[in-house]
């Protein structure tokens, strides 16, 4: 009986019902979309790191510490033969790391110089572009961010100064042969990339490297005294950042939910208090207080169900479209040292979808229950008159 009356009330209220449902639906969409964007941003950062830096893992020279450039001059040696074999069979790539300085337009810019196996297809770095260079200068690949910072463009030449294995400073003329677009600022800012063979010659470090990155299809166990760093180890910093950021994510979710809840609460409470006279009339006609409260709670529940259905029908395609094609971001965040895609793809996890739908459902139940219970506790005579207390 109550269900039928609730349906009748909702359908009968026409535009008022659908406006409420639409507002709730927009709230659900905004919560899912915003949280999805946030999750997508974090996932993207992880994916980009794996795509451009980590692949299947790496073997590091025992002295190598990527966060301490001072160690670079001591963190190189002949690449272990087992790893060389992998490089020759295109299952791994070598990287030689050293500090250097470049002098674009007379300015001095300290950089990390990295020699890399040019034929590699393991990392998403367009190293093969360097192979096209036929000049006599040192061919250099840089990122778009570095290009902007140093004002270097393709064809520009500049002095590179480095310290070789004999601790002697040397210099040569570098030439920009390609500028790559990468979402990973860690391979862009402050980095110059060049052929590993060229760098080995420059530094008098024949056949030496600092680390070897291997393909994610293989899993070599050991390589002499070089230390194996698996994906889990290499993304641990990222995971720590994400884990530390979890309270922020939860806070953002709560803020969005609270904003939505306030909107829903406002609309629903106003709607129910406007129906005070109706509640009094129902009681005069013999409906028990408990049933009046139940009726309005059922209406709230159905409102939520309609809103969830409307979200699926109206915003579902939009959410799906964004999850496939992403959302273009107006600003290049790489300048701020953030790995954020220029076209961000939101990720909607099942717990996010279920939790949002469930929480909005519960909020609507609560904001329907509380005001109707308050009104039902009023003196029926006052309620019938629509009297405010």
């Amino acid at each position, binding site marked *: 009986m109550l269900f039928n*009356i609730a349906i009748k009330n909702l359908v009968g*209220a026409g535009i008022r019902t659908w406006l409420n449902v639409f507002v709730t639906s927009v709230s659900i969409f905004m919560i899912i979309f915003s949280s999805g964007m946030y999750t997508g941003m974090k996932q993207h950062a992880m994916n980009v790191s794996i795509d451009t830096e980590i692949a299947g893992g790496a073997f590091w020279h025992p002295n190598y510490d990527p966060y301490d450039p001072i160690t670079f001059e001591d963190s190189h040696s002949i690449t272990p033969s087992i790893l060389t074999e992998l490089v020759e069979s295109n299952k791994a790539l070598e990287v030689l790391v050293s500090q250097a300085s470049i002098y674009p337009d007379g300015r001095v810019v300290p950089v990390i110089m990295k020699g890399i196996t040019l034929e590699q297809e393991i990392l998403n770095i367009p190293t093969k572009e360097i192979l096209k260079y036929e000049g006599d200068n040192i061919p250099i690949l840089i990122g778009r961010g570095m290009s902007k910072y140093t004002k270097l463009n393709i064809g520009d030449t500049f002095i590179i100064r480095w310290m070789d294995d004999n601790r002697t400073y040397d210099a040569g003329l570098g030439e920009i042969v390609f500028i790559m677009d990468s979402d990973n600022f860690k391979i862009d800012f402050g980095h110059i990339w060049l052929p590993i063979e060229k760098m080995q010659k420059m530094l008098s470090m024949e056949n030496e490297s600092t680390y070897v990155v291997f393909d994610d299809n293989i899993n070599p166990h050991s390589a002499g005294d070089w230390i194996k760093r698996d994906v889990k180890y290499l993304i641990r910093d990222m995971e720590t950042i994400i884990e530390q950021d979890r309270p922020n994510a939860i806070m953002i979710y709560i803020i969005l939910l609270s904003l939505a809840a306030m909107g829903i609460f406002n609309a629903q409470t106003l709607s129910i208090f406007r129906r005070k006279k*109706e509640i009094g009339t129902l009681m*005069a*006609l*013999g409906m028990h*207080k408990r049933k009046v409260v139940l009726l309005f709670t059922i209406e709230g529940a159905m409102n939520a169900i309609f809103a969830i259905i409307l979200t699926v029908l109206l915003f579902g395609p939009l959410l799906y479209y964004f999850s496939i094609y992403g959302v273009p971001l107006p600003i290049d965040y790489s300048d701020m040292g953030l790995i954020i895609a220029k076209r961000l793809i939101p990720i909607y996890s099942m717990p996010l979808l279920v939790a949002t739908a469930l929480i909005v459902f519960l909020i609507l139940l609560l904001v329907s229950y509380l005001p109707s219970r308050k009104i039902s506790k009023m003196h*029926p*005579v006052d309620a019938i008159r629509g009297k405010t207390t």
Partner: protein
Amino acid sequence: MIVKIKNLTKKFYIGGSFFTALDNISLEIKNGEFLGLVGASGSGKTTLLNIIGGLDSPTSGEISVLNQFMNTTSHTERALIRRKNMGFIFQSYNLLPVYSVYENVELPLILNNIDKKSRRQKVLEAIDAVGLSDKINSRPNQLSGGQCQRTAIARAIVHKPALVLADEPTANLDSENSHLIMEIMKKLNTNYNTSFIFATHDEKIMGYLKRMIHIEDGKIFKDEKIKL
């Protein structure tokens, strides 16, 4: 006896002191009466009507309605009595704005769990009795005041209650509609032997009443039986 009241007093706590709305009232109303509680605003007639309807409780005294001793009945039991045996007509109609005439009239039957087929028959009969068959699908905002009150009457009598309580049913209506409404209720009283109790100070409807109980300052000062 449909209503039996003995030494009933009702006091309201207003502004730090008690206001006596009904003062030691005793009254008996028989089945099938067409009775008016007559008095000026604030005399206590609506309070008495609400107590008879179980919407309010007396401060002291005894009241039995439809053989139920209302002093000891719970809210649930009073709701049941209203649902089964009473109809209400309000001054401002109190129709549900999102319902059509049909749906408004159908509501008491839904609350009484009457099956759909019987409901339809009873609703159409009640709407016909108040002459609104052509407005069956209209909503209250599409009706005149008189039509709204006729809908309220249909809603009050659709489940064939023993007692209909009407609080100033003609106060918002013009003369023509007031007479029309009273004619309808008089006819229902005659046809179904439904008891009607009005709370009113409208001179226009006094001529229809078979009994007038004059209330002043919460006391009955005259109980007048009228021969029509």
